[in-house]
């Protein structure tokens, strides 16, 4: 890759479209519109190693005032 690819979040921030404006892509599942897919379709795309999508892994948030207690 030439550099860091710009990504765009879709589906309420659950997935990121990488390096493209979300829109139609041709793939094994046919012509898929990344601007209109469902969560289920997004998971189907990830299952075929679709290179223009990734799932956003949300870091667990720490609760304030609840550190480690021994």
């Amino acid at each position, binding site marked *: 890759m*030439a550099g860091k690819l710009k990504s765009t979040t879709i589906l309420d921030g659950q997935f990121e479209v990488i390096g493209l404006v979300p*829109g139609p892509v041709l793939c094994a599942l046919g012509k898929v519109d990344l601007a209109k897919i469902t969560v289920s379709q997004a998971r189907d795309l990830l299952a*075929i190693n679709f290179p223009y999508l990734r799932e956003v892994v949300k870091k667990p948030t720490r609760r304030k005032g609840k550190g480690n207690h021994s």
Partner: protein
Amino acid sequence: MQIRDFQNQRNLEESAGLGMTVVIADYYDILSFPTLPNLETGETNAAYVMATGAFEMKPGKQFHVFHSSLEQNSFNSKLVGSPGAMTHENVLTIRRNSASPELIGYVRSMKNRELVVGFKPLGESTYTIIGWEDLWAMVTEGEIDIPKEVSGEKHTTLMIRSIYLPPIKVLAIPLTPAPID
């Protein structure tokens, strides 16, 4: 790259013919290509032609669609050259049964241009690419033909040729541009 077994692989969806949608990008609109297969580490025959990763387009640039007529597209890949120095020559023929101004203008815009072209053989899940980094494809023949008989085959045809690399397979081809910063 090693010789491997090729054993009977049943494909109930096997078929001749290509899909009617062909996608074409200007070579210079692509910022980077998927990664070509590693011929040392490939563990299957298919791995020798399967690229991984994504096309990275330049901001605002994209692959464009050409819709052919049904059963008019064809593809041929040959080994050419003398034994010991043989390589691949790939020719995609795309045809639309029309000679409209849109098509004539399309032919005009394609000639002498460096191209990267994707298409899908029927019965396959992957897309085939001709034209790659440092090895673009180009139109080598084009024809706009209006026969004299009404039963004749009116058509606009382009033949696009690439060399050296075999038909390279990719999982997906984007039809939208890269985001503009």
